[in-house]
């Protein structure tokens, strides 16, 4: 099975919404790749992630992670997937260490392994000196890094990140991107959404541009740039396919 993620003809329309969030989206992510899911606001990126995590049910179509159906095998999928939401999904009044210990316990990981894994990740993401500080007192960049650690405690094979570098400084962004590359180099798959094209260009093996709930174009950033006339950067390709009109 070559694919880590198989999304086939997904349709989803939320109640009260005028247009569908997903309108026949199909997408395939090979194992051991970093894939950037790019699209303007309202393109369907977050809905796709919600469906992959089993948080939202599609109206039609199917989504699979490592062969497991996202709507039915939710438990198996959540066990093998790490999701880093855009919001800081941590307890603000607990320290980083207490958060990781609690989350690790909920994953059923034993204390020794939680400690080892937390310490390794805290060190790797530069938070080892702040492990005993409450998350609420962290800076924006520190919170983002802690958010990633919490999603990796159970050693997932697939990491899904929703704009993990939104609102962080250059140093924190560099640290996060380096970490993701390193994580990928250990044979893991990463699906990643961002509005920052140069970031995607920098770390993604492939990108998929979606718009209005549909797949638009995909391929390696270099291929896309060279195959699209008049484009010198990925951002040009993005604008070429999604247009210049502002999305609400």
């Amino acid at each position, binding site marked *: 099975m070559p694919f880590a993620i198989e999304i086939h003809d997904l349709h989803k329309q939320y109640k009260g919404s005028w247009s569908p969030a997903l309108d026949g989206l199909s997408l395939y992510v090979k194992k051991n790749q970093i894939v950037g899911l790019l699209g303007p606001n309202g393109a369907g990126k977050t809905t796709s992630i919600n469906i992959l*995590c089993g948080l939202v049910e599609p109206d039609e179509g199917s989504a699979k992670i490592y062969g497991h159906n996202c709507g039915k095998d*939710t438990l198996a999928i*959540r066990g093998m997937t790490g999701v880093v939401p855009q*919001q800081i*999904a941590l307890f603000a009044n607990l320290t980083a260490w207490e958060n990781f210990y609690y989350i690790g316990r*909920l*994953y059923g990981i034993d204390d020794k392994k939680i400690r080892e894994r937390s310490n390794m990740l805290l060190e790797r993401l530069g938070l080892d000196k702040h492990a005993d500080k409450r998350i609420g007192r962290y800076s924006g960049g520190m919170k983002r890094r802690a958010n990633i650690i919490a999603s990796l405690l159970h050693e997932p094979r697939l990491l899904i990140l929703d704009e993990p570098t939104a609102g962080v400084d250059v140093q924190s962004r560099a640290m996060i991107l380096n970490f993701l590359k390193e994580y990928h180099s250990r044979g893991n798959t990463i699906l990643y959404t961002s509005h920052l094209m140069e970031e995607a260009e920098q770390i993604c093996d492939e990108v998929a541009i979606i718009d209005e709930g549909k797949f638009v174009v995909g391929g390696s950033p270099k291929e896309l740039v060279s195959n699209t006339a008049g484009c010198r950067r990925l951002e040009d390709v993005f604008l070429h396919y999604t247009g210049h009109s502002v999305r609400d």
Partner: protein
Amino acid sequence: MRKTLATVIKEWILFRRDIAGLLLLFIMPAILIIVMALVQDAPFRDYQEMRFDLLIADNDQGSLAQQIKAGLRQSKNFHLVDSVDGKPLSEENLKQLLQKGKYKVGIVIPKGATAEVANSANIIANDLSKKLGLGSTLPAREHRGNTYIHMYFDPVSKPTFRTSIHFALDKFITAACSNELISRVSKLSKLQNDSTADTKNGDFGKVFEGVGLKEEPLNDKASYTKHMNSVQHNVPAWAIFGIFFIVIPIGGHIIREREEGSALRIELIPRAHISVAFGKIVFYTLVCTLQFIVMCCIGVWIMPLINLPSLGLGLHPLALLPMAMATGFAATAYGYFVGTLFKTTNQALPFGAISVVIFSAMGGIWVPIELLSPAMQKVALLSPMHWALDGVHNLILRDGNLGDILQNIVFLLCFGLCLWLVSIYKYNKRGHSIQ
């Protein structure tokens, strides 16, 4: 189980970090029970337990008035006031003082009351003498109309107060009249030289010693039995109210976790939600139980320091523990329900607070359920606070044991379980999603 325990530990860490919230959770109910016990102390006291200033205008100056005054002076309930500023009270003075509200009650013994009672007693004695064939008679005349002892009340006095005082005074007057009658019969006997009829005990009360009404405890452990008083009602009642007020922090806590995203994290962990929910319920149930224990300790040891009766815990004080835990479970589950049902704290907190006040009003927290109308007494059965309070009363007033509160515990557990299941259903239905 490890997940539940981890949640309990996490809640404990969060709880102890919020020192202000923690103190409020214990200090506010403590203040509430003390204030309510003090405020309601007087209304809860039986009138028999209280001592009143009783104005008395004696226009008779006879033996009947002397007997009534002697009886009232011996009573623990009345303090006789028969003169003001060194002058004997007149009927007019008495009325003025009552009208001003300086005193609550007064009686006027009319002129000739003793003579009238003596005449009535002579008539009865003569009648008896005739029927018994004694032959001797005492001087008697026709009745001279009404010589009632008049009672006056401060116009502000409540009907229940008037009735209680009326009965208490009536008792002394009846005793005085009866004493008069006995002395007349005794006099007749002496006239007949019947030594056996000589009553050594001229006092009516002594004659009938061992006869009459006497209140007895329902069980054989009379050394314990406590009566309803302000502390026995208010400490458990407001402690239960305080327990249910945990709805506010729990509801807010659940909504906050949803808003800040930590609930999403839990949702993304396989099989974590139920364990986390259970952990929260266990933790807050323990907090509620501890809260109840602290309130009981205040009732037992602090209340006597402020001149209130000490809280009696009944013959089976340990049975209060499961009662408190069941109450805590019901309150916690209700908080969980409120937190799950509503989307924002602006919706949840007012609903939680007002619904708790409604439950308390319905459930007999403010006033004992016995004082409510029959319809409201039926409505009270819908309030979990009624079941909680009734269970505690079974233990601390009716000397019940665990068996006597099983029904209350089962109701509270069912109430909590139903709300918890609805909350889990609602939680799953609403779900969480990455925004």
